[in-house]
């Protein structure tokens, strides 16, 4: 009975940070981060970049994670991503030519709002654009072509690794950006699927709890900092959109398309909510 009450009070806490009609990203951000700081007062802020391993009560999972971090299973994929990044196009140029600062220390500003195309742009979109502008074929068909998606994830992982430790800083100052942010936020809080879960149910209400006794749930604070990531279960680097797809499938909801506007906006919202946290991608995950 006591448990029920604790649970109910946890749930109502989360209800307290439910979105209001007014769009005010900065106020949302404060509420969102304060929620986790209060929920997990012993966790230092930067630790949230380590996903579920940062949370109290999951020490045995963390110990195991530290062990695989000694020889990270994603190293091979990351080195293939580095090779793809460095291999010259047919015209002799490389990816570095398409990015500010040769691509170093810039990923903390991704995804970003692009006022010219009126869309949120992800690192994947800029990498693919770079390929097209240089007469190369982009990574495509990412929902169906597992091999292309994994090769892309390796490249994106290398791109993010060049900004490791940089703190997320997302610009939501323009009205268009706020609209995209609102769109992502709506998706985050909405219940869906036959099992009727919102993202917020698992990654806020139930953060730190253990589903089924062997699948702990991460806090949303820190989401996106580690991606592309490699799960033991997958045995390969994967994109954040693939993570979204699998989270949607778990609750028997129809997943959205890899690279769809809605997932871009969700990623924009989630990344903004983790503002200030250091990038750790790529990383190992359960």
């Amino acid at each position, binding site marked *: 009975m006591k*448990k029920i009450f604790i649970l109910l009070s946890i*749930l109502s806490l989360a209800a307290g940070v439910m979105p209001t009609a007014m769009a005010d990203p900065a106020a949302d951000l404060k509420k969102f981060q304060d929620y986790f700081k209060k929920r997990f007062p012993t966790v230092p802020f930067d630790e949230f970049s380590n996903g579920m391993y940062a949370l109290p009560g999951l020490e045995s999972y963390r110990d195991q994670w530290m062990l695989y971090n000694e020889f990270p299973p994603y190293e091979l994929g990351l080195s293939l991503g580095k090779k793809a990044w460095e291999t010259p196009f047919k015209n002799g140029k490389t990816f570095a030519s398409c990015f500010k600062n040769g691509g170093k220390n810039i990923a903390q500003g991704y995804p970003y709002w692009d006022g010219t195309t009126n869309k949120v742009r992800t690192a994947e979109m800029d990498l693919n654009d770079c390929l097209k502008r240089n007469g190369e074929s982009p990574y495509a068909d990412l929902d169906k072509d597992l091999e292309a998606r994994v090769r892309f994830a390796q490249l994106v992982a290398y791109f993010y690794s060049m900004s490791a430790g940089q703190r997320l800083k997302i610009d939501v100052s323009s009205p268009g950006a706020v609209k995209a942010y609102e769109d992502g936020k709506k998706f985050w809080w909405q219940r869906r699927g036959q099992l*009727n879960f919102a993202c917020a149910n698992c990654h806020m209400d139930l953060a730190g*709890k*253990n*589903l*089924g006794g*062997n*699948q702990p749930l991460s806090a949303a604070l820190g989401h996106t900092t580690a991606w592309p990531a490699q799960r033991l*279960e997958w045995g390969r680097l994967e994109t954040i959109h693939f993570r979204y797809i699998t989270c949607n499938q778990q609750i028997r909801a129809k997943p959205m398309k890899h690279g769809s506007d809605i997932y871009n906006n969700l990623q924009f919202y989630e990344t903004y909510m983790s503002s200030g946290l250091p990038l750790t991608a790529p990383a190992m995950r359960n």
Partner: protein
Amino acid sequence: MQKMFKIVVKISFAATWLGVAAFMAPAAFAAGGEAPDSKVCNDKENPPKDVVTQGGCIVIDRTKGNCNACHQVPGIISGDIATRFESMAQRWPDKAKLRAQIFDASKNNPITVMPPFGKNQILTSDEIDKVVEFILSL
């Protein structure tokens, strides 16, 4: 061989809800009182005939009830999200109310995370009845 392993993993992942890959410790067979042995549940030749065991099999089936993802069900590895299933008959003297909680938990608590098993047709009416019989045995 590795390929076959991968396929098996893939199928079991697809068939799972909440993606919980539970490696269940087989419990001794008993009609009620605790989770039935998964071998008993999966015996196609000789499926369990009593409703209590049938209900127990639905409760621990990851594609059906998967109640142990959240509730502690005696005799099986469980999550720590919701109440422990124990002394159910004492706590739920009114069977209809218990059934209603499983049919649509959001009636009692609009912000609950418990899936609405009947309302969203995750379980059939008959399956819910069997689940009720099983949990009342705990």
